[in-house]
């Protein structure tokens, strides 16, 4: 029973973790992309469409990432090249993504998908209790943790990460030092798009191999909240994602157990938890401000 619950927690947490890690890098570069929901839902529909057309869930996952990058480029062009308002453009990306995915997915509604295979290592996966949990997940679960390692290492231990943080903290100084502010931000936004796309593809290829309109159901927004919750530290995002995964799963199990409580109120739990967590973290101003990229959301036009 506990093993089954833990396994479902992993599947609920992984899309959140993937999208949150991507957005964390975007925000570290000083860009606030509120379009995570739109990029995720595009990743979900593209992942499903490519999987069904090619018969390969791997290509589907790749397609999800590519779709995420493509729509993130619209946002990048409008906010970075044309310095449009980032908040409004992010909302535009979400509305656009929800609309376009609904249009693309119309012919896929109700079709059965192909599920991404989980890893099987003879011996290890058969271990009692920990076997399936540690060695029997699908590739995206491992990728989500690898990306946490990678991003953490990149931001804190590499020259590229230092430049990215410099761009996010003070774009004028970074520009004066000769770093390509806009270029760095383009790359960060594209990375965010790829990760959100992967998160979306996880939902339609690994979690429930189906396409349902608006199937991300606010997970992109929860991922955005996770970045704030994690105060821009990758490892805290893991904790946050698994906390939310647990809340989501407990809600399903409570419904299954038939606790005499309306299911609608249980379904509200992840959203209410997001609000509670945001309030709690905003009480701790010092920790938050210390890690907040100082140029977050501010427009930048290079002077010549």
């Amino acid at each position, binding site marked *: 029973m506990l093993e089954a619950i833990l396994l479902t927690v992993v599947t609920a947490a992984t899309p959140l973790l993937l999208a949150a890690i991507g957005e964390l890098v975007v925000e570290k570069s000083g860009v606030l992309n509120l379009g995570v929901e739109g990029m995720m839902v595009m990743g979900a529909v593209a992942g499903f469409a490519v999987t069904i057309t090619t018969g390969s869930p791997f290509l589907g996952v790749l397609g999800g990432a590519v779709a995420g990058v493509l729509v993130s480029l619209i946002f990048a062009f409008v906010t970075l090249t*044309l310095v449009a308002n980032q908040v409004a453009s992010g909302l535009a*990306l979400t509305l*656009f993504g929800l609309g*376009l995915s609904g*249009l693309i997915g119309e012919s896929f509604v109700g079709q059965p998908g192909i599920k991404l295979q989980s890893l099987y290592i003879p011996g290890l996966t058969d271990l009692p209790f920990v076997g399936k949990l540690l060695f029997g997940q699908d590739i995206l679960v491992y990728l989500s943790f690898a990306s946490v390692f990678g991003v953490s290492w990149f931001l804190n231990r590499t020259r590229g990460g230092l430049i990215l943080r410099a761009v996010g903290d003070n774009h004028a100084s970074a520009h004066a030092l000769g770093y*390509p502010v806009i270029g760095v931000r383009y790359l960060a936004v594209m990375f965010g798009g790829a990760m959100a796309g992967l998160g979306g593809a996880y939902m339609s290829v690994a979690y429930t191999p189906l396409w349902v309109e608006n199937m991300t159901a606010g997970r992109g927004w929860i991922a955005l909240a996770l970045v704030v919750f994690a105060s821009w530290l990758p490892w805290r995002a893991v904790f946050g994602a698994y906390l939310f995964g647990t809340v989501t799963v407990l809600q399903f199990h409570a419904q299954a157990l038939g606790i005499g409580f309306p299911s609608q109120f249980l379904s509200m739990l992840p959203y209410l938890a997001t609000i509670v967590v945001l309030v709690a973290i905003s009480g701790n101003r010092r920790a938050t401000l210390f890690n907040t990229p100082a140029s977050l959301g501010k427009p930048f036009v*290079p002077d010549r």
Partner: protein
Amino acid sequence: MMRLELVKRTHKSRLMSVLSPLLAVAATVVFAGVVFAAQGQNPFTGVWYFFLEPVSSLWGVEQLITKATPLIIIALGLSVCYLSNNWNIGAEGQLTIGAIVGSIPPILFPNFVNPIVLPLMLVMAMAGGALYAMIPAKLKTVFGTNEILTSLMLVYCANLFLDWMVRGPWRSPQGYNFPITIDFHEWAVLNPVSIGGVYVNLSAPIALILVAVLAVVMRSTLKGFEIRVLGQSPRAGTFAGFSNRRMTTFAFALSGALAGLAGMMVVMSEIGKLQPVISPGYGFTAIIVAFLGRLNPVGILIAGLVIASSYLGGEAIQTSLQMSSKLATVIQGVLLFFVLAADTLILYRVRIVAGREGESLHA
């Protein structure tokens, strides 16, 4: 390699302030034409059916006004929020809660049939919407919590709450187990009346009055000045004796109340009872309307009609060209992108230059 370069203008371009929304609409029409062509349709026929055919009949114009009214009312409230730097994106939830609170008289007191019920419902809906908007507002002013995320999360909660109400405590005993409430009585619905041969209900003149009131408030009152100053420079506003916290409360209360009002009037005119879904996303689409209207009341009036026509256009291409009505949502999203991009022209001149040193896309 070619690249774009922005040169800051010394003054805001007044010409571009007027021209940029028109440019955005024009670009969207071209985009739509390309999409129609890509789907194997004649682009001109497609554009005709999507943008013009719906409003070529009297019935179409009435439909247009019906769809535009809630968008305009909600967008007016949102414009005050956005001008004062309060990012309320939860109007859809405030609309829902407003409609639920305003529906208390006809559902819980069905025997109280009296002309006073109608204004009572509208006032209660405004109070409900405003109170629901107070949650993100207070979390922002007291704890400094990001209002974008909290107001959005509350949309999901509001819709789930409505779902529970119409399936649970408020389900009609005569509804054959459908998730609907009892039908509202005669004083709890808005019936269309003829104004010069065009049938509209009370909500349309209310929207026009609200546009006029807000236009005057923004242009010639201290409150309008306060909204703009606090939005452009919170610090300068503080020196002038204005309070950012009070403005947040005011902006959220106003936009919540207007969203609640709009939701109630949609229910009273189009549905006549509560059901799990009462709005086709008016609260989100109103965000596009607010920006397309340049956060200006008269602009919002025009933008509301433009966006409402795309709803009708979606239905028109579905019946006439057998295309998906979902194309309408895509076109609305594209329009918002074009609006935001075109706004750049107000503050900057855009030059295309051959790429040399400096910024390039490859870091």
